[in-house]
Structure formats: C-alpha cells, structure tokens
C-alpha cells in the first residue's frame, strides 16, 4: 500500500506536472527551432511573442465572457485561441516585413538578426505591458479538476490523492494533436518538404524553383500558431504574467538546443527533458521516502536537491552540459 502511495505521490507531483510543463516548453522550442532552421537566426523575441499571443487570447476570452459565450466545462480561452492566432500571425508578419526582411534581403549575419530580435523582444514586451499591464492574470474558467485529490482518495482508498487538472489534460492533448499535424505537414506535404529543403540548402532550393517568400510566410504562420497555443496553454495552466513568459525563454532555448537546434522532433523531446529534469531536481522527496522506507530510517530534512528558486539553473546546466559533450544536440539526425 505504501509503495502504491509513493507512486501516486510521484505521479501527482512530478509526472503529470512535468508532462504538462514539458508540452508547453516543447511548443516554444519547436517555434525557436523552426525560425532558426528556416530564417537562420535565434529569435530572442520567442517568449514575448508567446506572451503577445496569450494576451490576445485573454482579450478575446474577456470579450466572449462579456457576451455571455462560454464552452461550459471547457475554458472559454479555447474558443478565443483561433482569433488570437490570427492577430499574432498578423503581428509577426508585420514585424517580419518592417524589421527582419531588411536584414534577410541584405544577407546579414545571423548574429545581427539575433540582435535585431532582441529589439523586437523589447518592443513586443512593451506592447503587452501597455495593453494588458504587467500584473498576474488568471483567465481560466470552466471545470477546474478532472479528478480531484479527495475523489481519488475515496475511489482508491489510498492516502495519497492524484489530482488531474483539466488544463493539464487539455495541454497534453492539444500539444500531441498539434505536433502530430506539424510533423505530418513537414514530412508528407509538398510545402512542408520544400521548407525542409530550404532549411537544408537554400541556394539549391532557389534553383529548384522554391519561392523563398512563400516559405517565410508559412514559417511565420506556423510560428504564430505555436506561440499562441503554447503561451495560452501555459497561461491557462498557471497564470499569465508577461515577465514569466520572458523568463521562460531560457528553458525554451535549452529545450531547442538540447534537441539539436533546427530539429523540430528534437525540440519536442527536449521540452520534456528540460521539464522533467527541472521538476525532478527541485521536488522535495521527504514524503516519498517516508512511504518507502521503514519508520526508523525516516528522513529529517526535506530531501530537496535544489530549491525551486534555482529551477532555471537546472535548464542552464543542462544546456552547458549538452553544449560541452554533444554540441549538435542529443537527438542527432535529420534536420527539420
């Protein structure tokens, strides 16, 4: 019984949250890797573009709520996301047209584009703060728990409860669907393959008649979808605060690099690698050992390897270790 309790404890506090957090990171990491692979620069505005997309989703959610529209047990935000995606894509395309395009046409070195993206980051950050403010916002509505901890205890008769939030299931489900569609698109459709080709060998892609303008357009459209959905899911699950989104850029970049930058599948798995390591290393294992060890060996301390304040240090360390030992990422192979 104690053993089962210990397993449920880990599921509840490590596995389910990490899977959710990993999905959110994975979407951001695919965004980073796609921009890097096709437009060839590290986009530092990633976090803030996600925050912008989330902001649009929140504004639409409020609007729908004021109209009295809701999805019942599901959060209204799900209805708002498609509209938010459209606005985010329009914003990205404008930024591309007025900012990035100039450097792309002039064939600027990638580091220059990365610097430019930091400028875009500041502007985007400012836009978000002016429109919605820097504060913490919750925009979740609908049914909060799929399974409540108390219900789970009653059902199983165990001491430990397993609570599953509906946002966790929604996050994991939407991520899997979205990523499956994306990989199908990149690997099976002609347009998707032409994006791979453009990323692989730009000059030859041009000689094959692939239109670079179309590739750039489609890249930003996919980026807009990923940023908005990834950001909105994170905001639904936790809360929306522009600064948190800016901070999330570190684990997102770590995930993209761990997966081998330019490799979307690697970025997808990288998201989970980072999320699981962060949560594994910052979880306090005291209760877990109380279940599996005899009473005489019960630990006195919290048995927490790192305080949660250091969770970014975990992704940063993984990043450094990977760059030292496997500079091309842990998932080698096909690019894009």
């Amino acid at each position, binding site marked *: 019984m104690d053993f089962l309790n210990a397993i449920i404890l880990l599921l509840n506090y490590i596995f389910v949250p990490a899977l959710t957090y990993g999905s959110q990171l994975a979407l951001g990491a695919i965004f980073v890797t796609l921009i890097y692979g096709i437009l060839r620069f590290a986009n530092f505005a990633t976090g803030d573009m996600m925050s912008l997309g989330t902001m649009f989703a929140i504004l639409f959610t409020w609007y729908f709520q004021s109209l009295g529209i809701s999805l019942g047990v599901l959060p209204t935000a799900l209805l708002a996301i498609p509209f938010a995606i459209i606005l985010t894509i329009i914003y990205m395309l404008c930024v591309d047209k007025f900012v990035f395009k100039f450097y792309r046409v002039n064939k600027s070195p990638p580091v220059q584009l990365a610097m430019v993206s930091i400028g875009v980051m500041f502007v985007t950050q400012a836009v978000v703060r002016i429109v919605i403010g820097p504060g913490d916002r919750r925009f979740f509505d609908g049914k909060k728990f799929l399974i409540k901890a108390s219900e789970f205890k009653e059902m199983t008769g165990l001491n430990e409860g397993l609570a599953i939030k509906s946002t966790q299931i929604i996050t994991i489900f939407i991520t899997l669907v979205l990523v499956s569609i994306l990989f199908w698109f990149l690997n099976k459709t*002609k347009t998707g*393959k*032409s994006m*791979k*080709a453009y*990323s*692989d*060998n730009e*000059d*030859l*892609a*041009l*000689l*094959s*008649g*692939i*239109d670079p303008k179309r590739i750039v357009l489609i890249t930003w459209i996919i980026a807009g979808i990923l940023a908005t959905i990834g950001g909105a899911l994170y905001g639904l699950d936790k809360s929306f605060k522009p600064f948190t989104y800016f901070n999330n850029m570190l684990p997102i970049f770590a995930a993209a690099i761990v997966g081998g930058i330019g490799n979307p599948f690697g970025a997808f798995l990288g998201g989970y690698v980072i999320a699981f390591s962060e949560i594994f290393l910052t979880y306090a294992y005291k209760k877990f050992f109380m279940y599996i060890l005899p009473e005489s060996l019960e630990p006195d301390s919290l048995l927490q390897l790192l305080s949660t304040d250091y969770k970014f240090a975990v992704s940063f360390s993984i990043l450094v270790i990977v760059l030292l030992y496997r500079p091309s990422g842990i998932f080698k192979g*096909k*690019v*894009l």
Partner: protein
Amino acid sequence: MAFFEGNEMTGGYGNGPDIINSCSVKVERGEIVSILGPNGAGKSTAMKAMLGLINLKSGIVKINGKDITKLSPQDRVKEGISFVPQTKNVFAGMTVEENLEMGAYLREDDYKKIITEIYELFPILRKKKNQLVGELSGGQRQQVALGRALMIKPTVLMLDEPTAGVSPIVMDELFDHILKVKKTNVAILMVEQNAKQALSISDRGYVLVTGENRYAGTGSELLNDPRVRSSFLGG
C-alpha cells in the same frame, strides 16, 4: 541560331572588374558542349551568366529564340534551364526520393512517372530511395544531383565541374550517365577541369582564356590542336 546561346556576354561579380569579355557560348539540343580553360579563365562565370546568377553589362542570353537576359535564375528554371552546382548540389538531410520531389517542385502534374524514369536512368537511386543523401557516396550523390536537375524535364542542363573530387572510376561512370542524359535530347553545357576526358565525350568545346573565347571546335579537333594541347592539356 542555336537552341541555347549566350552572345557577347560581358560582366563580373557585383561592381568588380569584368571577368568575362564578349564571351559567346552556343548549345544545341542533344549536344554536349564543354567550357574549358585554365584556372581563373571565367569558365564558371560564363555559365553563371547564362543562368542569371550574375548581371551582364552587355550581351544577350537566348533560349529557343526567346531573350531571357533579364530573367532571374528562378524564372529561367521555368524556361527549362536546369543547373547542377559544383558543391552543395543535393539536399543532404533529405532522402533520395525527397530530393527528386524537390526537383519537381515547379511541376503541377503528377511527377511520379518522371521519378520512375530517373530510376531507370540511375538504377542505384531506386535501391537507395529512402536513404538520406548525406549518407551516400560521392558518385551516388552526383547521380542524385543530376536526377534532381532532370526532374523538371529540362531542355538545357548545365553542369559545373561534375567530376570535381570524384575518383577516376566514378568519373567514367558519371560521364556515361551524362551521355545517357544527352540521348534524351537535352542540351548539355558543362564546365570541366578534366579537359581530356570531358572533350572525349563532348560534341564541341570552347576554350576560354582570360574571359575571352580563344579556341572553339569539335571535341576531337580541340584534343588534336597542338596549341590547345600545349597551353593547357599538358602536351
């Protein structure tokens, strides 16, 4: 008037000095023409000018009587001109079949049939069709590069040093493939360093020196011309 021709082409890279000076190259369908010459003679430049990769100060490029001097390389692809660069001429991270599909990017119709034709031309590619091109040998990669360029069913095929960096055996094999392509009524224009071997399969050749046409003639004429031999065929 020839099927594909560059007349009196003059130009260079950017605002730099002229690399080719009133240089003329003509190719008919079903003919292999080689551009030869010492290093720095402007061989590749002449070819790039015909492809539209450099802007000409003067001169005309025509295909089938149509003036294409002002067209971009992408638009020239649509006119049926295919180009195999010397390096980075395949999508290394994609499979053989995907490379061929990308070659057919501009085709609206069903390209499956053309892929079958390419496999008949280069049987080894059928066996390796699901393998990443980056994992193939140099000779096989060159076949992929040729196959990709042939997917648009070009009327003109331009090859920039197809045998650079391949072993002598592979070179012979590659020339055999180029001869097979010639039989499909394609005009083939190539720049080559291996002058003797190139001339032995070429119908005609141009020898460029400092960006100007120096000698021209059929393959055997040039091979037997003492001036050509002494100047750069190595006696």
